[in-house]
C-alpha cells in the first residue's frame, strides 16, 4: 500500500481550492458563494498543514490557527451582512446585486 506523500495532500488542496473558486464564480446564491469561499480558505489551510508536517516546521500550523480564527470572525460579519442585505432587497442572488455598475 502506497503512503500518502506531500504531493497527494497538495493535489487535494488544489482540487478543493479549484472547487471553491468554481463555486464563487459560478453559483448564484450568495450563501453558497460564501460557503465556497470557506472551502477555498480550508484548501489553503490543508496546504499549510501538509507543508508544516512534511517540512518539520510548526509555523504553518500556527498560521492555520490564525486563519481559522479570522475565518470564524469573517463568517460572523459576512453572514450578518447577507442577512441585512436580504432584508433590504428580498433577494440573496448575485445577479440582483449589480448596482456597482455605472
Amino acid at each position, binding site marked *: 500500500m502506497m503512503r500518502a506523500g506531500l504531493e497527494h495532500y497538495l493535489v487535494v488542496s488544489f482540487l478543493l481550492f479549484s472547487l471553491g*473558486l468554481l463555486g*464563487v*464564480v*459560478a453559483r448564484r446564491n450568495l450563501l453558497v*458563494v460564501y460557503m465556497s469561499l470557506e472551502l477555498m480558505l480550508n484548501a489553503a489551510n490543508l496546504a499549510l498543514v501538509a507543508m508544516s508536517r512534511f517540512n518539520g516546521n510548526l509555523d504553518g500550523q500556527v498560521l492555520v490557527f490564525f486563519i481559522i480564527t479570522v475565518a470564524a470572525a469573517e463568517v460572523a460579519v459576512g453572514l450578518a451582512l447577507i442577512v441585512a442585505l436580504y432584508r433590504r432587497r428580498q433577494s440573496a442572488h*448575485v*445577479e440582483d*446585486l*449589480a*448596482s*456597482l*455598475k*455605472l
Partner: protein
Amino acid sequence: MMLQHIAWIVLFAPLAAAALIALATRRDDRLSAQISIAASAVAFAGSLILFLAFDRFELAWSWLNVGPLKVDLGFKFDALSGLMLLVVTGVGTAIHVYSFGYMQGDRSFARFFASMSLFMFSMLGIVVSNNLAQMFVFWELVGVSSYLLIGFWYERPAAADASKKAFIANRVGDFGFLLGILMVWGLLGTVRFDELEARLRTDPGAMGAAATVAGLLLFCGAVGKSAQFPLHVWLPDAMEGPTPVSALIHAATMVAAGVFMLCRVFFLLNVPDSSALPVIAWIGGGTGLLAALIAVQQDDIKRILAYSTLSQLGMMVMAVGLGGPGPAMYHLVTHAFFKALLFLGAGSVIHAMHHEQDIWKMGRLSQRLPVTCKTFLIGALALCGVPPFSGFYSKDAILAQGFEHNTWLFLLAVFTAWLTTFYMSRLVIVAFFGGPKSSGAEEAHESPGIMTSPLIFLAVPSVVAGIAGIPGRLSTQFGAAAEGAHGPAGFAALFEPFSHSPLPAFLGLLVFMLGVAAACSFYWGAKEDPLPSKLGWFARAMKDRFYFDEIYSALVRLTQETIATAAAWFDRWILSGLMVRGAHGTTELVGRALRLAQTGNLQTYALLLAFGVAWMLFYALVAR
C-alpha cells in the same frame, strides 16, 4: 566744454525737436514747424563748425557691453561723415523751410514736422556711426521714419500701400545687412569701423573665403535702402508721400544712405579674397540703365525724377563696385543738391498746378513760374552733366573710373548718361515750353517766397559744388589711389576733367548734346508722346516699368499661396487631425473598451481577480 561736443548737439537737436513736438506743441502748428526748422538749422550750423574746425575725431559713449560684443553710441567725424553731415543738414534745412510753405493748411502740419525731425535724427545717426551695430539701429530708424512720411496721407490707400511696400522691401534688404553684420562680427570679432580697418590692414586675408559672402550680405542693405535692382520697386511708389519728403528722403539723403554705407565699409569689400565688388558694379550699372529706360516713358513729373534718382544711385553703386568710393561720394553730394532742387521745383510746379502731376497737362510754365523754371533748369543741367554745373564733374569722375577699370560698364554708363539727358530734356520741354496743354497750365501762379527761396539756396551748390574741392577732401579718406584723382579746387578744377581723362569728359559732353538734340526733335511742340508709335511694345514695356511690380506680386502670390496651402493642410491634418483629435479619439476609444469590463457583477470581478493572481503566479514562478 570742448568744441567737439557740439557733435552731440548736432545729433540730438532733431530728436529733441521731434520729442518736443510730439509731446508738447502738437496743437500749435506754427510753433511746431519753427521748432523743427530751428533744430535742423542748429544741426546745420553745428556741422559747419565741425567741418571747418576738424579733420577727424571720434567720440564714443559705451552703450552695450555683452561678453565680447562691445557697442558704442559713437560719433565718428572724418571727411566722409563730415561731408555727409553737411549735405543732410544743409539740404534738410532748405527742405524744412520749403515744407513750411508747401504743407501750409495740411491738418497734420505738426505731425509732419515731428516726423521730419525724427528722420533727420535717424539719418544723422547713420552718418556718424562708428560701428556697424549703431549704424543698423539708425538704419532701421530711418526705415521707420520713411514709412511714417510716405504714409503721411494715410487716408489715401495708395499712400498707405506705398509706405508698407517701402518698409517691406527695405526689411528684405535689412535682413541681409544684419546677417552681414553678424558675419563680419563673427569673422573679425568687432563691429567698430576703426578696429575692423586696422585688423584688415595688418591681415588682409583675415576674412578668408567668406569675404565675398559677407560683402554681398552687407551690400544687401544698400540694395534695399538705395533701391537697387531687384529691390528697386519701392522708390517710385514712395512718391505718394508729400513732395518735400520725396526731395529729402527719396532723392537727397535716405536713399544715399546705402551708397554712404558702402563707402564706409569699402575696406571690407576691397579685400583680396573678395569678389563682391564686380557684382556690386554690375548691379549698380544694370539698375542705372534699367531705371533710365523706364524714366523715358513716364508721364508723372515726380515719377520721372524718382526713376532718375534710381538711375543715379545705380551709377554711384557702380562707382563703388569699380573701386571708386571717392567718385561715388562725390556724385552723392552733388546729386543730393541738384536732385533735392529738382524735386522741390517739381513740388512748386505741382503746387502751382493744384496737384496736377502729369507733364502732358502742363506746358509753357517757363512764363508763369519764372523762378521755379530757372532753378529747375539749373538742376536739370546739373543732372545731365553740363560744365560748369556740379553734376558734370561728379559724373565725369564716375565715367573716368569706369573708363579705367571696365570698358563695358563705361559704355553702359555713357548710354545711361545719354538717356538721362533725353528724359530730362523731354520733361523740361514738355512741362516748361511749348504751348499750354490744359487750362490749369494757363492759370498757374508762382509759388510764395518761402518755397522759392530754398530753390535758390539749393541752386547755388548745384552750380558750384563741382569746383568746391570735394574730391580733395575725400582723398584724405580713401587715399589718392582709390580716388579717381580729381584734386584741385576753384578755377583750376573747372577744366581739370578734360586734361585728366579727356575721352570720358568729351564723351559725356557729346552724349549731352545728342540727348538734347534727340529730345528736341521728338518733343518740341509735340502735343503727345511720339515714342510709343515709333518703338511699339518696347515703349509700352518702359511705360509699364518692365512689369516688375506685376512679376513680384505674382511671385509673392504664388509662394504665399503655396505656403498657405501647405500650412493649412498641416494644420488640418497633422495638428488638428492627428494630434488633437488623435489624442482625444484614442482616449475615448480605450475608455469605451475598458468600460466593457465594468459589469457590476461580483463574480466577474472575482474571476478576473483569480486570473490576475494566476497570471502573477505564472510570471513569478515559471516565466522568470
